[in-house]
């Protein structure tokens, strides 16, 4: 044990003075498993989309996974288990340990705005990676909510007859398909920004691997 969380949730370095733990092991494991699942889901999903595009474009086939529709469906419906089970494990750990609430709440609009403006001016502090700034909090909350939207709309696309309540909530099969697509688009936008910011603050990549 090299760090300890105090009652109010702050971390304190241990007596040996090693760097404090930023990301616990369960978080790192679920993060990277999720990255793998999302990678497979998006690139196989693009192949499935291409079989019958909703909008007037297709994704380049070279950017897709599966080789053909049947292969892409197999990848998609295999990785969905990883995505959902791993996502539930993440949420369970986050709720039970209190980390979700501690790290992502409270979230205040004024603080989001202030941190966003500071980030745009390149003046956002990254001295303490244990604490998320308000823009980070918002984007992580967004991606959790978006993932839930993607999974639930995906259930309707997968089995619209067997999930009648969800089917109605999403306005039917065809609408659920669009929601599923825009959910993906939101997730892809998050990933793009996420990767750019990791490139700006490379230490964050190290902490997501080593934990500190």
């Amino acid at each position, binding site marked *: 044990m090299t760090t300890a969380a105090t009652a109010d949730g702050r971390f304190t370095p241990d007596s040996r003075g090693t760097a404090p733990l930023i990301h616990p092991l369960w978080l790192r494991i679920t993060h990277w498993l999720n990255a793998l699942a999302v990678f497979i889901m998006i690139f196989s999903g693009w192949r*499935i*989309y*291409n*079989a*019958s595009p*909703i909008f007037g474009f297709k994704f380049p*086939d*070279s950017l*897709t*996974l*599966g*080789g*053909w*529709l*049947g*292969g892409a*469906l*197999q*990848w998609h*419906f*295999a990785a969905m*288990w990883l995505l959902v089970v791993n996502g539930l494990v993440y949420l369970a750990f986050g709720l039970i340990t209190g980390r979700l609430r501690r790290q992502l709440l409270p979230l205040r609009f004024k603080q989001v705005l202030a941190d966003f403006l500071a980030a745009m001016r390149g003046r956002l502090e990254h001295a303490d990676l244990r604490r998320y700034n308000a823009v980070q909090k918002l984007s992580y909350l967004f991606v959790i909510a978006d993932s839930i939207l993607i999974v639930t709309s995906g259930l309707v*696309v997968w*089995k*619209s*007859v*067997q999930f*009648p309540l969800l*089917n109605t909530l999403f306005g*039917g*099969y*065809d609408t659920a*398909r669009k929601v599923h697509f825009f959910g993906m688009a939101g997730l892809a936008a998050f990933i793009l920004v996420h990767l750019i910011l990791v490139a700006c603050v490379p230490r964050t990549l190290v902490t997501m691997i080593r934990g500190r």
Partner: protein
Amino acid sequence: MPYKPPQRERPSIDPLVVKDALKLMPASSRRLFLRQTLTIGGLAMLTGCDLAHNKSITGALGKVSKFNDRVQAWLFDPNRLAPTYPASMITRPFPFNAFYGENMAPVVDGATYKLELGGMIADKRPWTLDALRALPQESQITRHICVEGWSAIGQWGGVRFGDFLRRVGADTTAKYVGFKCADDYYLSIDMATALHPQTILALTYGGETLPRKYGFPMKLRMPTKLGYKNPKHIMSLYVTNQYPGGYWEDLGYNWFGGS
């Protein structure tokens, strides 16, 4: 003599199988298929240049697909009905879709046609179209969902399939019902779906005799399954406990194919 369901090699995604499938495709979709397959991932999947690697991956994916069959069978509620729609919502024209072009759809002579029965069925006497039309008829306006993602609403009429199976003394405790079609399509479904109240042996579309392009003389219409699970131009059907596979399923589509 016991009825023998059609035997077919168990395929993984084998380049030869794909080649066979390509031969059956019209030139336009063949070009499309080839163009779409010529990607780094597609090549790796199809050329077999990294066989061990790919065989283990496709094998694992196939196992998950079998697992997903079981999950879908568990999710399937035999009493839950697919949504039905008013006639005003019918998609016009209802799309034609097959592994061949519309002008290649098989021509079946309705006057001499007889539906052949086989396998675990007590009364295997074949059925003429007139005899099938004399049975109680049902009609439904339901959504057809294609595995490609598009959907369309259509109106089918015909004989409730569960009633038909019971009438001919089919063993409804068997696992599968298999179909062989005039367009060389073949497929099988689970017994639970075969007995679902909305599963009908469709003889009409839009109140008219089922046209050639939609599967004359008959199509099995199941609003609880994806489009490729709804066979057209049915020539024979049989009841069995031996897994019969299916045309697309043997190439990699999920077997249960529920919606």
